[in-house]
């Protein structure tokens, strides 16, 4: 009797190069037949050590490096770094710059979520949907390229404001493009939310309870899909204080809920951008910055993947003492491990994808 109960454990390495992972990440799965009983992550394949570059680049130049923490969430990384420095130096950014930052950060949320929808579709074997989501995403990238000049790395933010203004005409066009996208994106998203074969693959998979999500420090859509209403945009940083929006939450905590949160956030971002365009004031877009920062600041923002923390410590010279970014995926790893325990090995790809892993953020 005892022998029958004794299960054999197999260890299966997964990654770093794997068809489903766009980025290198390695796991060791402890399996009991096809069930995952434990997961040991190992990271570091993309560790560059870019935080140390603050000692080699002046704090004004470092914005470019901060933007390259990650190419998907690049704008908010650049913006977060700038705002941390602005907090230390007590610079007040012109209102128009705040709104422009908001518009670009929400555009990058839309492009990131559409990108994720595509990758997730690819992970659960729906290639057509992957192509459709990425086709829709190109429209957002077109707006971004038209207003900043870059597709994925914008270079639009600087300490004291922004580098480029968006003309009123462009803002009007933006509204038209977004209105046009509604229907298109709605059709794609309806497949994600209502198609029975998609539901079959996502519902009830990789469940993360509300308690686990909170106590393991999960952030962003991962946390909100488990029923915790927490979104750092509600702090009202930048121009968010004037914007009216509700936090999107789901309660099931499974892959489907995480997908649904992101889908609803796309439409919410459209709504936020349109509100911002209707309220944007005129005036200058940057102020002159003189001197060097001295002091420390810890700030937080909402990335597409969740709450991000920047810590900056400066000593009064052009070179900072320390810049640290705690990125959302880093905080989501313990929760992901929890969600993976007890799942089928075949569902691993799906669950890993639904946390929207951004490894280059995580490892910096």
């Amino acid at each position, binding site marked *: 009797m005892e022998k029958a109960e004794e299960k054999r454990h197999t260890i299966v390495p997964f990654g770093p190069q794997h068809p489903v992972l766009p980025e290198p990440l390695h796991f060791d799965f402890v399996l009991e037949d096809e069930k995952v009983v434990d997961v*040991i992550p*190992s*990271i*570091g394949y993309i*560790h560059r*050590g870019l*935080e*140390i570059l603050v000692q080699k680049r002046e704090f004004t130049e470092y914005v470019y490096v901060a933007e390259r923490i990650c190419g998907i969430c690049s704008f908010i990384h650049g913006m977060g770094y700038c705002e941390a420095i602005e907090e230390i130096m007590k610079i007040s950014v012109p209102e128009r710059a705040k709104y422009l930052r908001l518009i670009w950060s929400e555009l990058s949320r839309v492009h990131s979520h559409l990108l994720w929808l595509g990758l997730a579709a690819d992970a659960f074997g729906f290639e057509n949907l992957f192509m459709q989501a990425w086709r829709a995403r190109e429209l957002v990238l077109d707006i971004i390229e038209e207003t900043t000049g870059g597709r994925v790395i914008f270079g639009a933010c600087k300490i004291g404001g922004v580098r480029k203004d968006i003309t009123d005409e462009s803002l009007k066009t933006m509204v038209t493009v977004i209105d046009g996208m509604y229907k298109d994106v709605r059709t794609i998203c309806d497949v994600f939310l209502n198609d029975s074969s998609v539901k079959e693959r996502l519902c009830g998979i990789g469940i993360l309870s509300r308690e686990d999500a*909170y*106590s*393991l*420090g999960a952030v962003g859509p991962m946390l909100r899909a488990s029923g915790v209403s*927490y979104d*750092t945009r*509600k*702090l*009202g*940083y930048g121009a968010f*204080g004037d914007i009216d929006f509700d936090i999107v939450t789901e309660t099931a905590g499974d892959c489907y809920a995480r997908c649904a949160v992101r889908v609803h956030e796309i439409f919410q971002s459209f709504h936020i951008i349109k509100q911002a365009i209707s309220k944007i004031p005129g005036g200058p877009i940057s102020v002159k910055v003189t001197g060097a920062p001295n002091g*420390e600041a*810890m700030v*937080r923002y909402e990335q597409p993947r969740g*709450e991000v*923390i920047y*810590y900056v*410590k400066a*000593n009064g010279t052009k070179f900072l*003492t*320390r810049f*640290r970014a*705690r990125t959302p995926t*880093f*905080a989501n*790893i*313990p*929760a992901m491990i929890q969600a993976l325990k007890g799942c089928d090995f075949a569902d691993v790809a799906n669950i890993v994808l639904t946390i929207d892993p951004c490894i280059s953020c995580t*490892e910096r």
Partner: protein
Amino acid sequence: MTENKMMIDIGSDEVLSRVQSYQQGGYRLVQMCCVREPAGNVPADHLELHYTFGRDYEMVDLKFSIPPGAAIESITQIYPCAFLYENEIHDLYGVSIQGINIDFQGNFYKMAAAHPFNPDIEPGQAQKEK
């Protein structure tokens, strides 16, 4: 909503009890990090650690400093998810942390330089202390 955040300086001996009280108070672990050149009248060769906790939209940052080469206790008994941060601090700064629930033994990041953020300490010193 105004942002509610604060930084508190504490002694390195009261860390565990403070962390425990935050855990009981329903705070989640936001982040942990390490910094060189601590502020105030702490000797320059000390390291400063920041443990940040959050509840709703409130954020509290505990700051304390440790002398070079000192070992600290892990807080993974209280917050199991802290293992990532603690392994990172160990690898980047060479701080030895005792009793981590998942200890990568210095292999969290595989790097060209040992403790790149803290070149003062000898390579491998932190591992030896273990």
